[in-house]
C-alpha cells in the first residue's frame, strides 16, 4: 500500500495548521491531501493526511507530527478497516443537448446535481478518490469549468477508535 492515511488529533488553535504545513514542507514529505475540521471533542480538530509511502518515510511523518506540542495523537490507520471519503464539487459545461447524458452519468455514480445554469451544472459527489477520479474523467469530454476536492477524510470502521 503506497498511500497511507494518517489521522491526527490536534488542538484547535491559531497556527496549528501552519506548524503542520511547515513541518511537511521542511522535511520534504510528499503528501497527497490534507483535510481539517472539528472533531467530536470540543477544542480539538481532526486532520486527515494522505501520504505517498513510495516517496516518503511514513513512520517519520507520524513521529515528527507527534513531536508537535499541539498534536495530541497521530495514527496511521492504513492497515485498519477504514471508511475513507472525499467530497468533490464539479462545475461542468452543459448545453440542452448534453444535459441528459450528464444526468445519466451522475445517476450511475450516485452523485447529485446541486446547481443548474444556462450553460453549466454543479455536481456534488462523495466517495473514495477512485470514484471521483472516474466520474471526473467521464465528465471531462463535456468540458470541466472548475473542480474543488476536499481531500480524504477517514475513520476506522466499527466501534474502534485509534489507540
Amino acid at each position, binding site marked *: 500500500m503506497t498511500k497511507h492515511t494518517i489521522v491526527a488529533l*490536534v*488542538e484547535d488553535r491559531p*497556527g496549528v495548521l*501552519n*506548524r503542520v504545513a*511547515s*513541518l511537511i514542507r*521542511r522535511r520534504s514529505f510528499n503528501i497527497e491531501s490534507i483535510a481539517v475540521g472539528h472533531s467530536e471533542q470540543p477544542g480539538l480538530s481532526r486532520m486527515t493526511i494522505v501520504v505517498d509511502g513510495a516517496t516518503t518515510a511514513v*513512520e*517519520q511523518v507520524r*513521529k*515528527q507530527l*507527534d*513531536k*508537535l*506540542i*499541539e*498534536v*495530541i*495523537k497521530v495514527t496511521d490507520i492504513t492497515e485498519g478497516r477504514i471508511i475513507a471519503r472525499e467530497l468533490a464539487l464539479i462545475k461542468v459545461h452543459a448545453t440542452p443537448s448534453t444535459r441528459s447524458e450528464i444526468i445519466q452519468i451522475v445517476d450511475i455514480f450516485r452523485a447529485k446535481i446541486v446547481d443548474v445554469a444556462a450553460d453549466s451544472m454543479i455536481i456534488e459527489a462523495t466517495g473514495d478518490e477512485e470514484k471521483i477520479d472516474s466520474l471526473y474523467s467521464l465528465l471531462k469530454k463535456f468540458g470541466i469549468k472548475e473542480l474543488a476536492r476536499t481531500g480524504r477524510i477517514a475513520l476506522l470502521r466499527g466501534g474502534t477508535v485509534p489507540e
Partner: protein
Amino acid sequence: MKLNGARILCESLVKEGVEVIFGFPGGSVLPLYDVLPRYPQLRHILVRHEQGAAHAADAYARVTGKVGVCVATSGPGACNLVTGIANAHLDSSPVVAITGQVARPFIGKDAFQEIDITGITVPITKHNYLVLKADEIAMVVKEAFHIAGTGRPGPVLLDIPRDVFIEEATFEYPEKVELHGYKPTLRGHAVQIKKAAKLIAESKRPVILAGRGVIISGAYEELRGLAEKAQIPVITTLLGISSFPEDHELSLGMMGMHGTAYANLAVDGSDLIISIGMRFDDRATGRVSGFAPHAQVIHIDVDPAEIGKNVRVTVPIVGDVKNILRTLNKQLEAQKHLAWIGQVEEWRRAHPLHIDHDADKIQPQYVVSKICEVTRGNAIITTGVGQNQMWAAQHFCYRKPNSFVSSGGLGTMGFELPAAIGAKVGRPDETVWAIAGDGGFQMTIQELGTAVQDNVAVKIAILNNGYLGMVRQWQDLFYERRYVATPLSSPDFVKVAEAYGMPGIRVTDKSKVVSAIKKAMKHKGPFLIDFVVEPEENVYPMVAPGCTLAEILDDPRKKVEFKLKPRATSNL
C-alpha cells in the same frame, strides 16, 4: 494580587528559579526592563548583539543543566536572536527566548518593528507562543520552561506584545502543567532493554557511541558502568565529548569527519553499535550507506523520531538515557573482549593524533594541548567553528563531565565568545577558555564589551591562521588550492581587546605559548591571547564527504597506510 504583564513575567521567571537573563532592550520590551530593578534576583547581562544573548543563554543552559533565558525587542532584536535559537534547537539546548512584539492593535499591520517572529521560528523552536493576554503569561511561562527543559530539550520562544506587558491581571503561578500533546517517554521498554542485553552478551566487537544525550541526562556513571562491566570501547560524537573521561583506557575519543582514526576504524569494524543519546548526524557517520557494515544497532534516545531516521536500528529503546542504562547495566554479566580491545589498541598505536613538533611556527594543535596541560584539563572549553573547533575537540583531553561547549548541529561561527560568557556566568568557579578562529571571532567580537562590563573572566585563545581555515582546507584538498575568499585580514586583536578594556597579548613564538597561557590564568578578569599559528595547517585525520569511516585521509607527513584508500570525492 493584580500586577502588570511585565511583573507577572518577572514573578514567573523567579518562580522558575531563573537567576540570569541575557538581553538587549528596545521599545517593545521597555515595560519589562522598567520593572527589572524590582527583581534583583534576576541578573541582567547586557550583550552587544542579540545573537550573543541567545548563544550565552544556550551555553549557560548546557553547563548548568538549567534553562537559559534571553530577551530581545521586537523586529530587528527578535531577528538577531534567530541564529542563536537555531543553534540551541539543533543542539537540543533548553533556552527560553522572550521577545517583545508590537502592541496588539498593530499586529498584522506591518507596524514599526513588527515581524512575525513566531512564524519565523516555527521550524527552529521546540514550541513557541504569541501571548495575547496578561493573564496567560504565568501559564505560558510554566509551560515554556517545562517544554524547554524536559524530554529532548530545546528552545521555546515567547512573543509578548508591548501592551500585554502593561495590561494588569491577577498573578497566580500554576502548580503544574497539563499538556495533552506532550508527554515524553522516560522509562525504556523492559522487553527492548532485555533484547539489548542479549545482543551485548553475544557481541564480539561492540562499541559504544555516546552523544550529548548522555550529558543532558547526567548519565556519566551509568555510561562508565556499562563500558567497564562489559569492557566496551567508548567513542563520542562531537557533542558527546566530555560524557566519558578521555584518559580512561576504554576511551577512543571522537568519531566522524575529524574523529580519531582508531575510533572510526572501530566503528567500521564493530559487530554491535550501542548508540546512546546521539542521532547519527552525517558528520559523525560518514557516507551512511557504508556506515558500520557489519554492525547491529541498539539505539537509545529520548526522541522517538530519531529512531530509524538515518540508520537502520535493530533494537530501539526510547527513554531517558540514565534510566535505561541503569536497568540495562543490571542485566549484564561482566564481559571481556580481549581480542577486540587488542585490535582497537593496535589501531590506536598505529594511528595516533599528530602534532608536528619540529615545525618552527606555532602549531595550533600545540596551543590546544598546552591549554590542556596548564589547566590540567580542569576547564570548560568553548569553541568557534572550523579548524579551531576540531583541534579543540582533538587535542584537549576532556576528563571533566560536561566541559566541552561547541556548536555542533548548526556549526555557527562566532559561538565561542558569547558561549564562554554564558558558561562562565553559569559556572563562575570554573576556568573557561574560548578557543576561537580569527574569522569566527570577528562575527561576535563585540561581546568583548559584555565580558568587560560584567567582568566575566573568560580566557580567549585565538588560533590566528589568517584564513577561514576550514574552508581553505577544503579548497586545498578538493578545489586544487584555489583560495577564493578565504585569506582574511584581521585587526590587531590585542589592541581591540585593550580598546574594550581587556588585557591581551600576541604570541608568535612557540617558546612563549605556555607562559602566555599561565599569564592569562593568573589574571583575574577576562584575557585575550592572539596566537599567530601556522597558516596552512590542515585538520587530520579526515573522512572526506562521501567516504565511509574506514576511508581515512591522514596527515601526509605521517606517511601511514590504511587498508582502504579514500575514494575520489567528485560531488562536493
